[in-house]
Structures are given as C-alpha cells and as structure tokens.
C-alpha cells in the first residue's frame, strides 16, 4: 500500500509536461553506478489489514503489567478522555511548526496558554513552547548558563536522575565544559556543605531536582542563596510534574530556571517518548532562552493574535552564535499538557494530595515488613526509597503477579544495595497496594 494518487494516464501527462520520456531521467544527476534497482532487505508491501495485523502482533509481544510501581522519570497517571479527543484533531496533529501565523492561530494560542500555565506552575515569569524532554531541557539550561556567564563548570547533584546527569555530561563535554557531582546526605538532599566548598567563580550553574530522583524534596531557598552568593545560576528540575500542584515551586524560591519532564500532564508512558521538556525562566533571560516562544500581538485591525516571536535567538538566524540548535518543540505533547491542566484546574492540587495519600499508605505498609527500612529522611511527594532484605527477590515476586516493582537504585548508586525506589500515583487502589504488600510478604 502506498499513498500516491497517480494514475498511469497522469504519469504520462506529467512526464510530457516535465519534458522527459522516462522517470529515470529525473535521477540523471545521480551517478548511474550508485542507482539501485531495488532496495535490499526491505519486505514486500502490505495491505492496510496486513499492516495493522503485523503491528498488533508486535504490540502483543509486549507484556503490559497489571500495576506499575516504578516512576523514576516516567509516571503512570490517568489521562482524561478530552485530551485524546483534542490532540487527535487533524487540524492540530497534521500541521507543521506555525510559520504562517494567520492560519496557525489554533496551535499558537494553545501554546501561549500552555506557556502561561507552565510559568504559573513553576513560579516563573516565562516559559518556552517546550523542549524534547526533561533531560535535554536540563542540559540546555546548563549550556545557556555557561554561555551567559562565560563560565565553564557545571555542578550537578548526584540525586538528579542518572540519565539526566548522563545527558548533561554529553552536552557539556561537546561544549568543552567541566561537570562536577555533589553527593547527597542522609535526608536524600544535596550536601550543602560540600556544595559550598565546590562553588567558586568558575561555576556557571548548579543543577538539582525537587522532588529529586529519590523522591526527596530539596530545600530550594537556602540552596538558591548559596548559589547566588557565588554569582552562579540555579537550575531546579522536578521529577513528576503533578507535584507542582501542591509543592511550592522552585521559581518562587529563587531558582533561575525550572526545567523538568512534563509527561505526567496528559501524555502516556509510551515506553519513554515522546515526552515533554518543560523549560521556565526568569524574565531577564527572555531573549536568551532556547526553543520556540509564542507571543501575543495584534493585527492591523487591532485584533489579538499570536506569533512565534524573538526568533533571532534561534539557530536559523543566529547560526553559529546560537546558544542551542533546537528548532522544534514537542507541540502536540504541549497541547496535551495544556488540555490536561485546563481540565484539572484547581483539581491538580487534589490529585497531588491523592498521590501523597497513596504514597504514604504504600510506604507505611512496606515499612511494616520485617527488615524493610526507610533510606532517606526528607519529605517526599509520590516516590520514596526503601531498603529491604533482597530487592531482586521482591521484584521477581511482583513480576510473577504482573507488577512492575520498584526501581533498583543499586544500578546507579552502588552504595545503595537492596534499595528500591517506589512510586504510587492515583492509579493504585488500596486493594492494589495491599496485594503488592501481600505479594512481597509471600502470602500469595
């Protein structure tokens, strides 16, 4: 099945109009010896019915769990029906980047509204139209800080998501910047004393997450003071965006940039992507931040409208002087996030509170088991770390019940042996949680 509408007669007429006798003549600029008769190793075409059957068979090779107790950067939340209905409107999903504002007011206004919601949620004045994902958003904030301050060192908390740290390392290496990691203390929060020792006039930015990878909420305000005292910038990430429904946002506590993963806002798990890089900043960075920005303006009749604005920041004008090469955003994911947040409204706080209730219940039940201990003391949102006698065995037992267990922290933190990072969202019922605990206990 291909999607070309050309009839034989069309082709004859079009060839004549183009002044060619044979289609091959169109490819005469390609040296003959490099022209293929047929692509090797590509299967034969399929009819639509065969395509969907094939895709179904692949999808069925995945085993969907009954429950997911892992968060660690990707969160299982309920998605209201309206979200899918809106983002599946072809006017939105079959459009390109809104270069022609007059026929792109839909996506432009939706993004402007998204920017407004994100700025508010993060406690910032401005937010961009989104980036690839939380990790690359954090890396872009680090690079921007270094270029803005003309400093060459990035300091990152070890309690930041391991994959985010890896992305930051890659971006910094390519730009020639040094990366230094700061350990965590018993609370699970960044070691403020060691941070202070590490901070000097070469440090451009300090990168943390709150809640961090362990679920612990960082104390942002004193952190911001310490960072600013040395003239550096504070980049505060977050893990699960729904936490912003109840936690004081880092933007209100002195962070210069708030970045994070917005997948929780109406985007499915999708095995890791596409996701949504949230990027919010203080207003003074408006003309420097990477990514697309939508701005409000008027037309010649004074009617309000929206345009892509401040494009001089971007690669296609600044070229080699650009601070980032990003030219797209994750518009449809941002649209989903906007619809999600408008759907929940004030209820986002209720949802966040429910996540806390479920998490505390799961935590309490697990800590009631013999040999299970709390690992960190700082308050948490919907993730927490616990140590247990045999983490592998716990996850194996859960897997047999069709449950994806906790994230094994030892993979990334060798010192955290038999330590599991659990996440409980609104998707877990009390019955589910009791089943988890019974399974771990070996009652089932």
């Amino acid at each position: 099945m291909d999607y070309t509408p050309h009839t034989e007669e069309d082709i004859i007429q079009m060839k004549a109009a183009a002044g060619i006798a044979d289609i091959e003549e169109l490819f005469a600029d390609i040296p003959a010896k490099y022209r293929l008769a047929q692509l090797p190793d590509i299967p034969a075409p399929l009819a639509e019915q065969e395509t969907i059957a094939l895709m179904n068979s692949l999808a069925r090779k995945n085993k969907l769990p009954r429950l997911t107790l892992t968060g660690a950067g990707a969160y299982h939340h309920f998605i209201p029906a309206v979200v899918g209905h809106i983002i599946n409107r072809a006017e939105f999903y079959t459009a390109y980047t809104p270069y022609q504002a007059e026929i792109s007011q839909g996506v432009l206004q939706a993004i402007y509204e998204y920017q407004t919601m994100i700025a508010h949620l993060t406690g910032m004045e401005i937010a961009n139209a989104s980036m690839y994902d939380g990790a690359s958003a954090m890396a872009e904030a680090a690079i921007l800080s270094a270029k803005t301050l003309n400093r060459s060192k990035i300091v990152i908390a070890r309690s930041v998501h391991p994959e985010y740290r890896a992305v930051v390392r890659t971006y910094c290496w390519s730009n020639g910047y040094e990366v230094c990691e700061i350990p965590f203390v018993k609370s699970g929060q960044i070691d403020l004393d060691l941070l202070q020792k590490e901070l000097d006039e070469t440090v451009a930015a300090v990168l943390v997450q709150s809640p961090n990878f362990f679920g612990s909420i960082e104390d942002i305000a004193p952190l911001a003071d310490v960072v600013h005292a040395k003239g550096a910038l504070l980049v505060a990430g977050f893990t699960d965006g729904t936490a912003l429904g109840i936690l004081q946002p880092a933007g209100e506590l002195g962070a210069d940039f708030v970045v994070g993963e917005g997948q929780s806002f109406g985007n499915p798990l999708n095995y890791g992507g596409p996701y949504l890089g949230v990027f919010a900043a203080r207003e003074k960075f408006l003309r420097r931040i990477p990514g697309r920005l939508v701005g409000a303006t008027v037309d010649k009749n004074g009617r309000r409208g929206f345009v892509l604005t401040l494009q001089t920041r971007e690669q296609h004008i600044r070229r080699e002087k650009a601070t980032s090469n990003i030219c797209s955003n994750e518009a449809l994911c941002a649209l989903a996030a906007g619809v999600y947040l408008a759907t929940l409204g004030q209820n986002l706080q209720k949802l966040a509170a429910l996540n806390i209730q479920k998490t505390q219940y799961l935590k309490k039940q697990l800590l009631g088991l013999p040999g299970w201990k709390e690992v960190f003391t700082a308050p948490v949102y919907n993730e927490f770390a616990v140590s247990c006698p045999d983490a592998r065995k716990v996850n194996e037992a859960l897997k047999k019940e069709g449950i994806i267990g906790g994230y094994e922290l030892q993979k990334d933190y060798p010192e955290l042996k038999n330590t599991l990072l659990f996440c409980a969202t609104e998707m877990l019922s009390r019955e589910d949680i009791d089943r988890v605990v019974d399974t771990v206990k070996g009652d089932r």
Partner: protein
Amino acid sequence: MELIFEKSRPGRSAGSIPASDVPAINIEDVIDRKYLRSGLDLPEVAEVDLIRHYTNLSRRNFGVDLGFYPLGSCTMKYNPKVNENAAALPGFTGLHPYADDELAQGNLQLMAQMQQYLCSIFGMAEFTLQPAAGAHGELTGIMMIKKYFEKKGEKRHRILIPDAAHGTNPASGALCGFETVTLCSNSEGGVDIDHLKSLMTEDVAALMLTNPNTLGLFERNIEEVSHIVHEKGGLLYADGANANAFLGITRPGDLGFDVIQLNLHKTFSTPHGGGGPGSGPVGVGPALVDYLPVPRIVKTDNSYRWSENYPDSIGRVRAFYGNFNVVVKAYAYIRSLGAQGLKRATQMAVLNANYIKEKLKPYFDLPYDRVCMHECVFSGSRQVAQSGVHTTDIAKRLIDFGYHPPTIYFPMIVPEALMIEPTETESKETLDAFCEAMITIAHEAQESPHRVKDAPLSTEVNRLDEVLAARKPDVAWKKQ
C-alpha cells in the same frame, strides 16, 4: 478569540478526582508546610466549554488533512491513518520505559528491525533512534564526529558548511566547539569544487552536506566531493532533511557519507503535530559505530535487550530511548510501502516537483533551471521589480486560495525565495489547481498589487505585528 483563562469561572472544573480509599493522613504531617504552595491559578472551565475552546482553536489551524501544504524542506506528505491506529495500541503506549526487557520484546523487536530497515535504505552500518528531532540528530552526529577525532588523537577545529545550508548546521557545529567555515555554491547550485579543495585541510573534521541541497538539486560531483574530503582524513556528514528525494533510488552510504541524520516526521510520514514530536535517527558508517549514543539494542538468540556497555559512546542525548511512539508510526509506514512503495513514493515526489517547476517557470524566476529533485526553488524577484510585491505577499495571498504557503526566504542564496515541495501524495489535479492559483497571483501582482499586499483577507486575523511582539514581548498571560 478568548483565552481559556478568560473563560475561567471559580468553582468550575472539567476533571474529577476519585475519593481517597486509603486511611487519610494530614499532608502537613508528612510535608513541612514551608514546602507547600499557597495557591494554584489554573483555568476553571466546564468540560463542554473546554472542548469548544480547543475545537474552535483547531478550526483556526491548517493541517495536511485540510489541504495542500507545499512547505519546502518540510515534506508535508499525507499521514496515513493506519499508522496512528497502530501507534495507539495499548501495547505500545502503555509500557513504562523501565519495564524489564523481557516485558518489552515487541518494542525492542520493532526498534531493532527499524534500525535494520534504515540501514538498508540508507546504506549505513548502524542506526540510533534516540534523538528526538532532526536538529537533535544533527547534534548527535556532530558529537560522534568530535569523539571520533578525539579518539584518534587528532585535533581538528573546522567544519565546512555550504552557503545554502540550513541554519541548524552551523549551530550544531558551534555547539560541539567547531569553527564553521562557509563553502560557496557554484553557478549550477552545487558545491564549488575548487573552493572545497582550497578549504579542505587536515584541520577540517567534516563537510556537512545536504544532498539534494536546499535548492532541491542533487550534487552531481558527489564522488569527487567525497574523495576530496576523505583524502584529507575528513568525514562526510549528510543532512537527511531531503531524503524524500532519493529513497529507493540511491543510498548515502554508497555515495560516501559517513553519518546521516533523518527526520522521520518528514520522510517517513509521521505527523508533525504543529511542531513536534518528531524523531531524528542517526545512521553511521563503520568508522563511527563505536561512538553511537547508549543504550543500544543487542540481539541474543531469540530476544532483545538494552546494553550500555559501549565505553567509547558519546553517552546519552536524551533520557530513555527516543520518541518511541513516533518510531512505531514510521515502522508501520515502511512496512506498508515495502521496497517498491518507497521507490515509487520518491519517483512521484520528484515527478510532482518537476511538474510544478515546468508549469510555473514562465511566471516566476527560476534561478537554477535544471531537473530538480523533490522540491523546486523559485524567486519572486520579478514581482518585486515589476510591482513591489514581495514573496511574503505571494505567500499570504496563497492562504486566500486555501493553500499553505511554500517555504519563503530560504535558502538565503536565492533572493525572495519560494521553495515548493509538493510531496508524492498529491494528485495531478491538486498540483494543477495550485499552479493556477500561483499564476493568478502572478497576474494579480501586476494588475492589482494591493490585493496581494493586503492578503490574507480570508483569515480570522490579518498579518500580525511581529515588531510589536518582539519589542514588547508578551509570552505569558497576566490577569488584568
């Protein structure tokens, strides 16, 4: 149209939250009050109002499903619906990225096969699906080139980029610490070979070439270009933005390219979503395989798993594995079309572009009059000289005829450029009607230029004040 915030009324909501079924705790007992926020200021609307708001917004947006979208270099082909259905299967959407490999064998098999298909189609040794978009893939490709020379212990500082290239090319080069040097085009729109010879030294890491280039022209001297670059130990980078011009006809790997970044949302029909999500896989020749991002998929007997064990890798460029759900759509597309379909798509894309080129040639200046590939680039210079009608006016007038305008003012080496990419999914009637509209506008430009300069007249808003938007930026709504 009102903003969602302006429709907000305290107490309304479109979302419902289940009651808690676990023993209640007081939140301030577990989270110190200083960590809790004071207020939340999100829109409060009823579900019906929410749906009407976004549905009405969608009516102010133009997509491929509404009409012809010949936006050059963006390959706005039709997005087949079966691909959407496939990608929406719960088996693909529902899995957590940290699910055990054992649970994700369908996803892993799909990704591994996708990499193989891309290797076959482009003649490369290996692919990564991790980059989230074309520009992200470009950055990844240049990072690998940097790592390659680092490992060889060679210090190379420069990257050559043709003057017709997309602005991301120099930006990507600069972000990897390279100095970017502009390579001139010759009178045919190809690489100026003498200029290349004079610039290509042992300080040059790579030449970044878009082939066909942004003029829609295939580089006739590609063998010589490849030879000159490789002779000095440099690498040849392919910007795959224009891959819709050669799929099934030729392979960049065979032509001497060492690395290529793709845009699945262009060439492989996945929808653009109003600016993303895209997907930007990167393919490499044997020289660069060791530097691919981690994790990579490994096949063992009858199963697949992720591996991070590649010590020379550049590392990660994104969390998890890339825009997986976009890859699902592109995979379904490749399987639907098969080898023959991919080749036919290319042939029809190129035929369509040449058909438009010939039909419009009498009415608009064609700076490079030769067989084009999947797109053709005209200049509006004649109209500017005759009546002061600029390319932007022509573009806006096309909106009144029901078309999305072509790409304008790019490439920069063509004054008043109009870059038209019809793609293969458009019928002869559609092209004829579009050409008629263009010809009508060419006449209008002469006879009643004000009608063109005042366009569009059919839209909810007229041309917007971009200067005001940039002078007094308003990027987030504030309550009055």
